[in-house]
């Protein structure tokens, strides 16, 4: 699907509530949005479904204000993460400590203890929320550090350092001896 195709689908949804056009948009973007939501919630399928549902409803409500300054998926991903943060603030789950207060990798005993058996998804779920947000937004969704900084209300430098630490956590959890990465 080209950007022009996507623009036409968006136009049909906003202009006349075209269910088929929405269906095409949903099919294209939901697997990525759901993956993001599922990983943000640490694998909680029910909460991820709620987030994906609410994000789509909010997106369609505001679709006529989308200005195409970013890719549609990037915009939708932002709605997903904002919804997740709203639920966290509302007490539905812990938002975790402030990003600046997260421990360095050497302090994370939980990851170290499971490093020899954890797979990638489990390793992501085991990350502290702040690390997980930055890692998912940058490495999975494709946000820039500047965009992440704006979205999470942090400095771009903090985003960069947290990404490095998140990657370090994950590599160590997945490959505790470092052999695979050195191969």
């Amino acid at each position, binding site marked *: 699907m080209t950007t022009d195709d996507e623009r036409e689908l968006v136009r049909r*949804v906003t202009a*006349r*509530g*075209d*269910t*088929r056009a*929405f*269906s095409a948009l*949903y*099919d294209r973007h*939901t*697997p*990525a*949005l*759901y*993956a993001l939501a*599922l990983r943000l919630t640490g694998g909680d*399928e*029910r909460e991820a*479904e709620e987030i*994906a*549902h609410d994000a*789509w*409803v909010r997106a*369609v*409500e505001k679709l006529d204000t989308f200005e195409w300054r970013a890719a549609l998926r990037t915009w939708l991903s932002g709605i997903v993460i904002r919804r997740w943060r709203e639920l966290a603030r509302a007490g539905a789950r812990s938002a975790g400590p402030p990003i600046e207060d997260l421990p360095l990798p050497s302090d994370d005993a939980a990851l170290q203890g499971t490093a020899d058996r954890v797979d*990638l998804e489990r390793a*992501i779920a085991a990350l502290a929320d702040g690390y997980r947000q930055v890692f998912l937004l940058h*490495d*999975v969704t494709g946000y820039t550090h500047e965009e992440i900084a704006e979205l999470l209300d942090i400095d771009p430098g903090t985003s960069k350092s947290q990404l490095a630490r998140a*990657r370090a956590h*994950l*590599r160590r959890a*997945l*490959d505790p001896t470092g052999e*695979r*990465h050195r*191969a």
Partner: protein
Amino acid sequence: MPDDPNDPLRALERELPPPPHLKRRVTATLTSRGLLRRAAVSPLRAAGALAAAVLLFAAGLVVGRRDGSPPADGRTSYALLLYEGREFDRQIPEQTYVAEYTAWAAELRRRGAFVEGHPLDAGSRVLSASGDSVVAESRDVASDAGTMAGFFIIRAADDAEALAIARTCPHLKHGGRIALRTVIPT
């Protein structure tokens, strides 16, 4: 993502399959809020979900008969209100539902227990009085059991028989819930 081809982080899947019922749920919410138009049901699209649902209940009407009058045999009418929540299994082919509900309704008909059955469209308008006017809002009415997706009217000698009939409804084994209510004759 990291450039190193041996980096274990490269194995991360960017997409994961969402729950199969999520699309219908999102579409229903958007429709109920007036953000999407209700999909027109064409006779040529009988394989579609809504048409299948119509067929499903129409099958019940064919084998039963529409008669909402109070029963003359002393039996009581009961409403089986069918709810679909998150637990409802929507992965089963529509034809399977049609076959199961048809067989179930046919058996009730054979026993003289079937009165009526209908599906309900996704979304609803909620009306309420506001001063001298009436306000109609397009939104879902959902309970702990989920959203009402249809209903059957049956006849039974007493509550115990009605409950026994309701227990056999195929809606239950697919994760749906049924509210059994007595219909008060008027």
